[in-house]
């Protein structure tokens, strides 16, 4: 395949993607205007756009956004501090890693969202139960990646640093940390995303405030157009947070 062919293929792919997007929007529009799909089920795209503009202009989202982001931030700080600290302590001894790593991995494979009713029982319907659940769920990828990160550090580098007389702190600062950082950062990114998703999830299921709660509230009020607008808003927020943490991860790796 020549480069000309490849360029033509890429242009064609973009065209297919654009056509796909336009087809979805057209079908959506036709379904609401021509085919009589109830607007309670599927609001007109133009109305959703108007509602979205209204939501953004009125600033009504600020309160819910602040609650959700605070929950995510607190949960992430708890789980990252706890996860990195415990991961580092365990990774100091290969024996402890062999004892605890399978245990942590086993718990990680259980869908922890199951325990949401318990968390609600313990911490109530407010932000505390969301923070606790988000912190629990995001703790596991972080601790497992921290353990994996510190165990990928080359043994030779540690021995070389030691034999050149590095102190414990110097060994940590100049050998262990740079070696482990890429894997730890990947874990932190995963942990952040998981914390965000589980907090949105628990707000959807049982809560008093927050973006997830707002969407459910609008769904129950059958205000579908505004619900679509909020869904678009939350998806945009989640996507931008995703981009930000990915950029931070790439920066931190250098």
């Amino acid at each position, binding site marked *: 395949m020549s480069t000309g062919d490849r360029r033509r*293929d*890429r242009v*064609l*792919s973009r065209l*297919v*993607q654009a056509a*796909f997007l336009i087809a979805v929007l057209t079908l959506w529009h036709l379904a609401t205007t021509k085919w009589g799909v109830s607007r309670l*089920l599927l609001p007109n795209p133009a109305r959703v756009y108007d509602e979205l503009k209204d939501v953004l202009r009125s600033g009504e989202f600020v309160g819910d956004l602040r609650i959700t982001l605070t929950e995510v931030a607190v949960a992430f700080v708890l789980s990252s501090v706890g996860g990195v600290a415990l991961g580092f302590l365990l990774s100091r001894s290969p*024996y402890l890693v*062999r*004892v*605890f790593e*399978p*245990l942590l991995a*086993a718990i990680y*494979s*259980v*869908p922890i*969202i*199951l*325990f*949401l*009713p*318990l968390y*609600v*029982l*313990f911490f109530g319907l407010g932000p505390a139960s969301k923070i606790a659940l988000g912190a629990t769920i995001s703790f596991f990828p972080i601790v497992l990646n921290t353990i994996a990160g510190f165990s990928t550090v080359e043994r030779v580098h540690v021995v070389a640093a030691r034999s050149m007389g590095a102190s414990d702190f110097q060994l940590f600062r100049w050998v262990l940390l740079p070696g482990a950082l890429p894997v730890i950062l990947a874990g932190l990114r995963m942990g952040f995303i998981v914390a*965000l*998703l589980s907090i*949105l*999830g628990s707000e*959807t*299921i049982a809560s008093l405030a927050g*973006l*997830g709660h707002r*969407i*459910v509230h*609008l*769904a*129950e009020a059958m205000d*579908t157009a505004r*619900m679509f607008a909020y*869904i678009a808003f*939350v*998806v945009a927020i*989640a*996507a931008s947070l*995703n981009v930000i943490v990915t950029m931070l991860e790439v920066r931190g790796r250098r």
Partner: protein
Amino acid sequence: MMQRASDTNARGASGSSPGAALARAIVRHPGIARLGAIVVLLVVWEIAARAWVDPMFLSPPSRVVGSLDAVFHTPGVPAALRITFFELAIAFAISVGIGLAIGLAVGLSGFARTSFMPIILLLYGVPQITILPLFILYFGIGPASKIAFGVSHGIFPIIVIIVAGVQNIKPILLTSARSMGANRWQIFRWVIFPHMIPSFFAGLRLGMTGVLLGVLLAELYVSTAGIGYFTTLFTQNFDPTKLLGLISLLAAMAIVLNEIVRRLEVHFGRWRAE
């Protein structure tokens, strides 16, 4: 425990005390220490639940285990477990079927891959929990919405992994098969298919994780007869014993399902490692 310690002592080095032998056995077998850690955790929980925590909120593990029978005999619980299992099975089957078809269709053609893969990754990246109310709106509060939501969580990892698996085939294998005169079907059957098997089972595992998450989220959100109904009921009645019993049953179900697909993955991925 004492029996085992003295056994190790008899077999182990000469002239050391049973305590030292036990310590050596623990060092040699991390599994024993792991078991010990779990036991310590359960004992702490038991003591905490009996001594300090309000029995409205937490009950000791001994009572939870004892209550499993009562949970099973709560009217509707066996049916709810069956419904949830049924939802999981159907959602998983649909995810695998459609995911495999889309994954192959998109992965086997370079053009389809560059065109549709960005769209699929974009959809995969959407936090689907935000559209859960829509699923309820379209599919009702019965099992259909749980199955649909489970499929929406399970299908994307399967597609992505299948596409990646098809893509990873070394071009030289395809070229050589073609130059030896293999037709499309033969190439698929003898080159692509064997290479796909490990990624197929990896996809099954990730798909199972997704389906479990989706179905359980939808169950917890709203449910009339499934597990979600009873977790809500037990929570509202401040009955932590039954709640914990039910949750442990579900967790056990999730672990068993995960373990089955993980074993399959290890089993069918063997040939590549050798």
